[in-house]
């Protein structure tokens, strides 16, 4: 079945996750072959997902790990204190 752009857009997220049924997948791919608009939408979405998921985009605050383990050490230590 020939898909229109709007229907492809509605399925883009599932298509990226490879969770569309195979027959729908084929319809989408047939559409993408000739539609530069949907191809660009798909490429830009994928690209944006790669960029946002990069560890450099969301960085942990400086010293986060150190403070976390210090807090945990304190918790482990205080338990020890209680036992005494």
């Amino acid at each position, binding site marked *: 079945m020939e898909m229109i752009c709007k229907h492809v857009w509605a399925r883009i997220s599932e298509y990226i996750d490879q969770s569309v049924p195979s027959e729908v997948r084929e319809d989408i791919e047939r559409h993408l072959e000739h539609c*530069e608009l949907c191809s660009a*939408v798909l*490429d*830009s979405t994928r690209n*944006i997902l790669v960029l946002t998921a990069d560890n450099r985009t969301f960085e942990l605050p400086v010293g986060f790990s150190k403070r*976390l383990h210090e807090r945990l050490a304190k918790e482990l230590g205080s338990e020890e204190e209680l036992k005494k």
Partner: protein
Amino acid sequence: MNATTGAALQRNEAELIARILSGEKELFHDLIRPYERMLYLTAFSVVKNETDAEECAQDAVVNAYRNLAKFRGDSKFSTWLVTIVVNEARQKLRKTKRAKEESLDEAMEGEEGEYTPMPLTDWREIPSEALERKELREVLRKAVEELPDIYRQVFTLRDLQEMNVADTAKALGVNENIVKVRLHRARMMLQKNLAPYLKKTTAPERKGFWGRMPWR
């Protein structure tokens, strides 16, 4: 993570947990080490504030330690931990206000349509090296932070932390279909908000779709 390393990790964790519970409690440091980033990002997706997110992450770790004996191996340790941090963050948020925004978000959920992407005719891939630019990182972060709360939370777990649909649903206390719908909307919103900017600032000028239509 593929299935084999996933299973190996789970076995490894089960062993660590057993040792911690039998007294080698210092090993808890090692148990949570792989999840530091996950703890922080998850908390941040709820509270949207660095200081609060860090506090929630710490509280969650302490809480997880105190309740470790209650962890049942029927779910993954990571899912259990993420559920704890989500709850910590939600409690913190409740304390600090904002029931109002939350209900606005919920109201939006029923709306159909309008979750369409920005139409483009060509896309020149932006390589990861471009992330060396601070400005680009800021633009990406801001776009994610500006997503409505319920969409940002799903996006953070699914796309930033690569959690699967089932675990995301479990951690957030919603069904899998809601996870899929929210993720789709989050991605479309990001594409719509970011694509025009990224195209303009990072790709060389090229005649676009509208440029080829003389009547416009």
